[in-house]
């Protein structure tokens, strides 16, 4: 047996280690038992949630309306423009509100930042609003109090403390809201408070480097769409870095390879751990995390020699890396002014080198511009000093959780406990808020008024789409109250806008029109004031010196990365995010230490073996492509407070991060691995990594494509030619729906998966069920490795129901619960399904999902609900899309091509007496895709985009040799290999 073969076996079929854990006793949910009850409670829930914010009159019953409010039509959704912001993710969104409940977030096509596509976290965020663990009213220590009491006590103490010279510290995450900033300014003045912004994964090192290189702390905007050559040193710009949704759109626009758009960019990724971006790279160069500095110096030296910069003495990176870097250097040099070099390390020295390389290549002002600079990531480590100071009087923690996310957790805890006054203003309990004396409940962002200036000169608004569910108050409202400002927060924002932005525009004459117009659009774009920066080379030498003199790491280097779904620690609260498998490892529910196959073999570590790393115990996962001496762990896991017991997963790795010369460092050198002998369950959704040489994801190189646009897909024509059939052709007289998926633009970000979850009421099954392969997602993103285990090529493929014209599943259902619609949809009739799972067995794509247990509470049998994530309690059920049936235990479900959307748009067109337009109808996955990889439409219309894509030489159907005639087409993956 060859080594390669062995390797795939090592990774094969992760066996659930501990089936005994699966006790299945989850009847904790004390709620309705029958379907009738379910409906009743749904109604009640809606009532108790009161109604939309703008709805003035109290309404007694949800449906039917006795007196119908103007803006609500039962069964018809209302859409509001708003925005989502969390850490590094910002999206202008449209909130879909049905029967007064926000149920879905969609991209705002008018936005200049994110006109299409969202991230997965945005999609899942609707669940946060209905989270059962939220604070429901103000709490003093453990005692529930009323707002007035809290206000009075806090104001008194604040005045007292600031009067007595003790410091008042307000810690917030980065605030991008101009109005809030103004308000906080007023607050700090009136209470003599210090305001600090804190980012768990900060970018203050970048800002410092820019200050040194360009004399400005601004974070520039990157134009990946203009870059012909992208070189990323450990920077996950498609997954977690700076503004991934935006970057994905930009990047993918250069991957959509058609005759009219033939310029494929070239992407090099030099990295240690396998990142989402790395898996998409044309060439991925594997290098240890400890080599990044040397690599940057090497790049600088080599490029500098061609661009007249001074060389510096430095040991070059290992031979195998330098060998591969030659191409990188040549390509960068060849694409001066049309390339981007980025590095994903918060070390200011590294960033200074990156800046000088970009300067050297003439990229500054071209692909990297300081016009619409980013406003987020303003956090730094300065707050620590103030907090740990003995003079600390009051600490107000606003929706931030340093106790969890900072390595000096213990000192912070002590400081907060010591402080005479500690107040937490947050929606959901967290490790920090629980320490505070006062816990003031804040609403979720869908219940809030706010504004946001994510990028300079692009200001968005947030408006509530739901009456506050609990007795909560926005932090801004709290501050207003404390300052005794009589304005409501909404009016405050409006006044601020009138004074600041109204004058900047000319389209609306009256300020109220302007306000309404802004709310309608969700975004105001101010004139672009081109900023000029002056480059200063002098900082570079020092940075190069520091980087070149870095000590090599002994043993392993640990690299902490942001979890693509969990973010900085917000994700674990959201069961959808936890259940969505990581796009690289395909593991859901929890983190793990990724180690290289060679290292794993050397240390006899297998998937799930718990290892000791510093003082951390964490299960190991053998990750192909991982650098030999680097271990990668995702941050954001291991939350304990505010997360239901059952869904507490993973390990908090923040304590291993460090602060070095006042910058957070997410690497730890000189670590050793100790196997503990224990094992832990990993919910590995995809057990097999190799395509086994099958033509599942068809790929070719850019060169081949230029020769022949059908490169890699030659067999398509061959197979079509040999298609014989014993059946007559089925006629689809009206529409014939179809979908085309561009494998070249898809990055695997999983926004589609989460959008589908939200749109189609897909249940959450929890870690143990997921590990038993009982996951329910209707769309999955298959990931295959190809080639060398040390640095495999990665191919991805989103797979949902293929809606075959000759579907094997339909044939075998004994009760005809699944059949073909007259529009070419493979229909699934839940009511009729008796759950034989025969269809699923006979589905060659394995896209059918079975309700193994009563995940939703829709089952007729009482006391059997299985809901580890508490997502089917009355509150959480309010997020359900009422157009989609909640499936009962024992039925099969699967992708419906969002039939509810099809019907809605068809009806709209019919009422308006016009034919449907191409593109008018979008499926949820398509809508959420920031890469524009999914196109849906009518195959009977030869002019539709999807029809044209189906005729593209790159198009093929999955397993087309079986003659199932899928309605989904895939466009080949084209890599720009050198």
């Amino acid at each position, binding site marked *: 047996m060859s080594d390669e073969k062995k390797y795939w076996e090592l990774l094969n079929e992760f066996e659930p280690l501990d089936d005994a854990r699966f006790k299945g006793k989850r009847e904790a949910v004390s709620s309705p038992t029958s379907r009738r009850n379910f409906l009743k409670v749904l109604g009640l829930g809606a009532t108790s949630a009161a109604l939309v914010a703008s709805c003035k009159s109290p309404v007694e019953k949800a449906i039917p309306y006795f007196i119908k409010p103007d803006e609500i039509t039962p069964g018809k959704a209302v859409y509001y423009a708003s925005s989502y912001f969390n850490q590094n993710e910002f999206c202008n969104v449209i909130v879909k509100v049905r029967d007064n409940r926000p149920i879905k977030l969609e991209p705002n096509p008018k936005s200049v930042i994110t006109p299409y596509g969202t991230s997965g976290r945005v999609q899942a965020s609707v669940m946060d609003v209905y989270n059962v663990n939220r604070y429901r009213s103000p709490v003093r220590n453990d005692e529930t109090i009323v707002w007035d009491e809290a206000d009075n006590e806090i104001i008194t103490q604040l005045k007292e403390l600031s009067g007595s010279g003790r410091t008042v510290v307000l810690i917030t995450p980065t605030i991008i809201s101009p109005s809030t900033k103004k308000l906080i300014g007023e607050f700090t003045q009136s209470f003599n408070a210090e305001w600090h912004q804190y980012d768990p994964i900060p970018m203050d090192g970048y800002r410092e480097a820019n200050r040194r290189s360009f004399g400005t702390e601004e974070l520039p905007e990157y134009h990946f769409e203009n870059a012909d050559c992208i070189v990323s040193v450990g920077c996950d710009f498609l997954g977690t870095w700076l503004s991934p949704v935006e970057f994905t759109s930009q990047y993918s626009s250069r991957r959509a390879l058609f005759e009219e758009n033939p310029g494929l960019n070239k992407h090099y990724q030099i990295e240690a751990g396998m990142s989402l971006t790395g898996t998409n790279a044309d060439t991925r160069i594997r290098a240890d995390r400890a080599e990044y500095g040397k690599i940057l110096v090497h790049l600088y030296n080599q490029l500098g020699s061609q661009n007249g910069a001074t060389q510096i003495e430095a040991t070059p990176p290992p031979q195998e890396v330098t060998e591969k870097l030659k191409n990188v250097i040549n390509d960068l040099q060849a694409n001066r002014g049309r390339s981007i070099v980025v590095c994903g390390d918060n070390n200011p020295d590294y960033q200074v080198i990156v800046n000088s390389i970009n300067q050297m290549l003439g990229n500054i002002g071209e692909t990297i511009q300081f016009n619409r600079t980013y406003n987020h990531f303003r956090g730094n480590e300065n707050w620590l000093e103030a907090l740990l100071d003995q003079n600390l009087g009051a600490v107000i923690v606003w929706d931030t959780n340093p106790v969890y996310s900072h390595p000096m957790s213990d000192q912070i805890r002590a400081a907060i406990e010591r402080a005479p006054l500690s107040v937490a203003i947050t929606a959901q309990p967290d490790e920090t808020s629980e320490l505070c004396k006062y816990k003031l409940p804040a609403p979720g962002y869908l219940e809030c008024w706010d504004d946001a200036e994510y990028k300079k000169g692009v200001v968005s608004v947030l408006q509530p789409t739901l009456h506050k569910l609990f007795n909560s108050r926005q932090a801004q409202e709290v501050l207003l109250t404390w300052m005794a400002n009589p304005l409501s927060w909404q009016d405050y924002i409006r006044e601020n806008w009138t004074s600041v932005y109204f004058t900047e525009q000319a389209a609306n004459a009256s300020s109220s029109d302007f306000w309404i117009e802004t709310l309608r659009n969700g975004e105001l774009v101010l004139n672009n004031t081109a900023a000029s920066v002056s480059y200063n080379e002098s900082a570079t030498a020092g940075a190069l010196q520091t980087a070149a003199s870095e000590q090599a790491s002994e043993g392993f280097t640990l690299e902490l990365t942001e979890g693509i779904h969990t973010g900085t620690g917000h994700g674990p609260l959201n069961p959808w995010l936890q259940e969505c498998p990581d796009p690289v490892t395909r593991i859901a529910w929890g983190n793990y230490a990724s180690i290289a196959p060679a290292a794993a073999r050397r240390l006899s570590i297998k998937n799930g073996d718990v290892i000791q790393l510093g003082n951390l115990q964490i299960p190991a996962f053998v990750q192909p492509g991982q650098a030999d001496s680097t271990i990668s762990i995702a941050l954001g896991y291991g939350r304990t407070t505010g997360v239901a017991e059952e869904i507490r997963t993973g390990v908090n790795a923040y304590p291993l991060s460090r602060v070095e010369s006042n910058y957070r460092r997410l690497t730890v050198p000189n670590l050793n691995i100790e196997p503990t002998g224990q094992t832990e369950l990993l919910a590995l959704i995809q057990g097999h990594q190799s395509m086994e040489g099958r033509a599942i994801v068809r790929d070719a190189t850019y060169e081949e494509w230029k020769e022949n646009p059908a490169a890699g897909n030659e067999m398509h024509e061959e197979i079509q030619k040999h298609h014989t059939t014993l*059946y007559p052709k089925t006629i689809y007289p009206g529409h014939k729906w179809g979908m085309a998926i561009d494998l070249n633009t898809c990055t695997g970000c999983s926004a589609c998966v989460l959008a589908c979850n939200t749109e189609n009421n897909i249940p959450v099954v929890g870690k143990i069920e997921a590990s038993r392969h009982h996951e329910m997602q209707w769309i999955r993103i298959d990931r295959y490795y190809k080639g060398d285990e040390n640095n495999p090529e990665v191919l991805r493929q989103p797979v949902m129901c293929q809606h*075959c*014209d*000759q*579907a094997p*599943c339909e*044939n075998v259902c004994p009760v005809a619960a699944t*059949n*073909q619609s*007259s529009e070419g949809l493979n229909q699934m009739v839940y009511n009729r399904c008796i759950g034989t799972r025969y269809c699923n067995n006979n589905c060659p794509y394995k896209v059918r999902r079975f309700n193994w247990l009563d995940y939703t509470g829709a089952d007729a049998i009482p006391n059997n609900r299985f809901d580890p994530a508490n997502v089917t309690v009355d509150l959480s059920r309010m997020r359900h899309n009422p157009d989609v049936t909640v499936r009962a235990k024992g039925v099969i479900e699967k992708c419906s091509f969002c039939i509810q959307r099809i019907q809605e748009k068809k009806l709209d067109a019919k009422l308006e007496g016009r034919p449907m337009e191409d593109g008018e109808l979008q499926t949820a996955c398509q809508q959420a895709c920031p890469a524009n990889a999914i196109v849906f439409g009518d195959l009977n219309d030869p002019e539709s985009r999807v029809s044209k894509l189906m005729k593209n030489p790159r198009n093929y159907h999955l397993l087309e040799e079986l003659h199932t005639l899928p309605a989904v087409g895939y466009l080949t993956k084209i890599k720009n290999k050198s």
Partner: protein
Amino acid sequence: MRSIIYGHFTDELDLLNAVKELQNKGIKIDDVRTPFPVHGLDSVLKLPRSRLPIAAFIAGAIGGSLGLLFQIWVFTRGWPLVIGGKPFLSLPSFIPVTFELTVLFAAFAMVILFLVRSNLGPGSLPDILDEEVTNDHFQIILTDRNNSASEAELEEALASTGALGVKNIKTDN
């Protein structure tokens, strides 16, 4: 009121001979009862071939056609559905059910007819003259109603074939 004269043998070959002997004497045999089907007895007794197979064939044909027609009706008239791209009239798919219904109808019709024709069934009370008939007695039953000969002559004739335990009883039916 009639007389029933019966006697038995312990060997089926003796029975066959006795039957032939009695028939040669022109005596009509009312019934022969045996513990198992004796080969050759039906031809000696000149029992007509059973028509149960014909009944089975007819019932099977009915069952099969009903099944086939029903399936055709459902898929082409009742509610035609496109299933896996198959034609509505997907005849090969109809074969199994048609076949099963053929067999089911044939088997049931035949068994029911057998029971009705033989007057057997749950609760049927047989006229058992000798309990050993179901063990090892091969019994010949004569009745004066079928024969012109007298009771005594019948008894005599039966005894002369070597029948054992010849008895004569009177019955109303």
